[in-house]
């Protein structure tokens, strides 16, 4: 162990990585007891010999069952994640992710979730190469935000759209992407940003897999309720979802499909009291009872908005009859909808009527929204062009197109065939020039 510590202090990071990953070193670390490993890690400076600390602490973590972890190990892991040299740690991101996950679990057991959240945020902002990458740290950060109810701590990682999964730079796996999408969806649902939450859950449903996991089913349930809440319709699974999911959803999420049909029915609102009583335990167990209540309120608001398409002015009694409400409940409901901006109406208390107004948004707000959408479309178009170019320059892609005899494969095949035509014309022109010169 002393020899290893000496080599860690004297060898550069790249060589050290290959030494630490050699069979002999791995065997030596596995055979050492945790106290020796912890003492060796404590003798190193996490800010200077970060890679060595990482491998030693990873070995300690693997050797320590969860019940025998102590605060020294937790403190060492926190010091490494917060102060470790980013260039060294980025050489071995899968190990960093594993260590971070163990640290998170240990901190939660000690009731120090907030501290773990601070540590992971610092580590993520330092170690992830760019905001476009999805890393295992994202999922852990989002989970800690949910458990400690510090949702604003997730903002720096949600505001920037992350779309690149590069295991060589971040150590991400399929499961990490799935958890990132699921926990991100939960954070956005709690913050009432339903459009973003729907996007996260749709991405979770699109993660490639050969089997359906519990996380995917949970994401599907939340996605269905959010679809009813935000888009007023029973959602159809995205085309990118694996085929096995569409077969499984019908059996696993039958209750949610029924809820969707009830809450999006056109016409007077049905009386769902008895159905809610029988279904409540299942929704409560899934943790979706609150979301169902929100979807129910949204369906009442939609029923009011449907009235505006038929009536210009309506009496409270008629509105109560159509909305299946008591007469006294109509005015507060409409007032709340006007207050939240969902409805434009004018209440005449003297005559007991409501006059619905034109719900067109102001021109300035509309233009701002349009500009925001255009900017996002342009940014997505630029990313798509960059990805298209990267694919065309890939050896494997060029090999396939060459083997296919220049057949039309991929979106840029017409460009490639045009280039080949031009090249052929150049050769012909050169040959004609040679002939002319010879004659």
């Amino acid at each position, binding site marked *: 162990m002393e020899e290893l510590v000496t080599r860690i202090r004297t060898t550069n990071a790249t060589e050290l990585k290959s030494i630490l990953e050699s069979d002999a070193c791995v065997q030596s670390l596995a055979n050492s007891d945790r106290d020796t490993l912890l003492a060796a890690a404590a003798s190193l400076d996490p800010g200077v010999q970060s890679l060595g600390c990482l491998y030693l602490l990873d070995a300690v973590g693997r050797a320590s069952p969860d019940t025998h972890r102590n605060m020294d190990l937790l403190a060492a892991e926190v010091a490494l994640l917060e102060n470790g040299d980013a260039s060294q740690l980025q050489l071995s991101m899968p190990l960093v992710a594993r260590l971070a996950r163990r640290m998170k679990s240990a901190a939660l057991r000690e009731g120090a979730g907030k501290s773990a959240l601070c540590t992971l945020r610092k580590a993520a902002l330092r170690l992830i190469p760019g905001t476009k990458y999805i890393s295992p740290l994202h999922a852990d950060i989002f989970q800690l935000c949910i458990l*400690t*109810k*510090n*949702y*604003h701590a997730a903002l720096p990682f949600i505001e920037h759209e992350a779309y690149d999964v590069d295991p060589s730079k971040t150590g991400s796996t399929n499961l990490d992407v799935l958890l990132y999408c699921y926990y991100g969806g939960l954070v956005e649902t709690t*913050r*009432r940003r339903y459009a973003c939450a729907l996007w996260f859950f749709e991405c979770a449903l699109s993660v490639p897999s050969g089997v359906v996991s519990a996380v995917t089913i949970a994401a599907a349930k939340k996605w269905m309720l959010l679809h009813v809440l935000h888009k007023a319709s029973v959602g159809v699974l995205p085309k990118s979802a694996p085929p096995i999911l569409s077969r499984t959803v019908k059996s696993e999420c039958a209750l949610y499909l029924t809820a969707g049909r009830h809450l999006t029915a056109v016409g007077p609102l049905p009386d769902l009291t008895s159905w809610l009583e029988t279904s409540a335990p299942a929704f409560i167990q899934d943790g979706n009872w609150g979301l169902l209540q929100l979807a129910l309120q949204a369906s009442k608001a939609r029923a009011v908005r449907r009235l505006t398409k038929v009536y210009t002015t309506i009496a409270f009694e008629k509105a109560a009859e159509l909305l299946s409400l008591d007469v006294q409940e109509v005015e507060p409901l*409409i*007032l*709340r909808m*006007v*207050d*939240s901006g969902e409805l434009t*109406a*004018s*209440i*005449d*208390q*003297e*005559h007991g009527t409501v*006059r619905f107004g034109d719900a067109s948004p*102001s*021109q*300035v707000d509309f*233009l701002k929204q349009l*500009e925001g959408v*255009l900017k996002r479309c*342009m940014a997505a*178009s630029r990313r798509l062009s960059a990805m298209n170019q990267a694919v065309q320059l890939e050896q494997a892609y060029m090999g396939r197109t060459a083997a296919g005899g220049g057949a039309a494969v991929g979106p840029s095949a017409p460009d490639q065939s045009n280039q080949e035509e031009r090249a052929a014309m150049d050769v012909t022109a050169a040959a004609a020039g040679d002939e002319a010169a010879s004659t």
Partner: protein
Amino acid sequence: WPHALHMLALMYSNRLEDARFLYKRCPPHVRDSQPQLQAAFRALQFLWQRDYAGLWPLLRSGWDPHQATLVRGIASNLREHVLRLVATAYSTISLQALAGALGATLPEAQQEAAAHGWELTNAPSGGAWVRIPPKEAAGDPVAPDAATLQRLASYVLHLEAA
């Protein structure tokens, strides 16, 4: 940590979501031991449910001196908000309902209505009705300037390049 003061400050800034999460983060022993925190949470519940008539008595109840300033600020913001809401959502409203929504007495509600140019008429059965004239839609000035034209040009170039 002054949890009640923090929550009132978030309510004053109209960050009701953050106030709600703050309450959820508070440990149970803190929630149970601070009556002012409980009072602030009840106020948040009324604000969240937009039950302004129910909120006024709570805002007028006794608060600690260092919280009273924030509570007065919340009350002032609330009064302005309710006046804007009444102007938007009502064509006629009873004077009593207006007083309840503003947390004011009948003479004070009458003064507010007169200050906003709302007509007061007596009802045959007693009481009074406040008539609110419809609001004229303000024209949104969207004057094209150099920055707007620049953005438009970039959109056109992008579409042509694609």
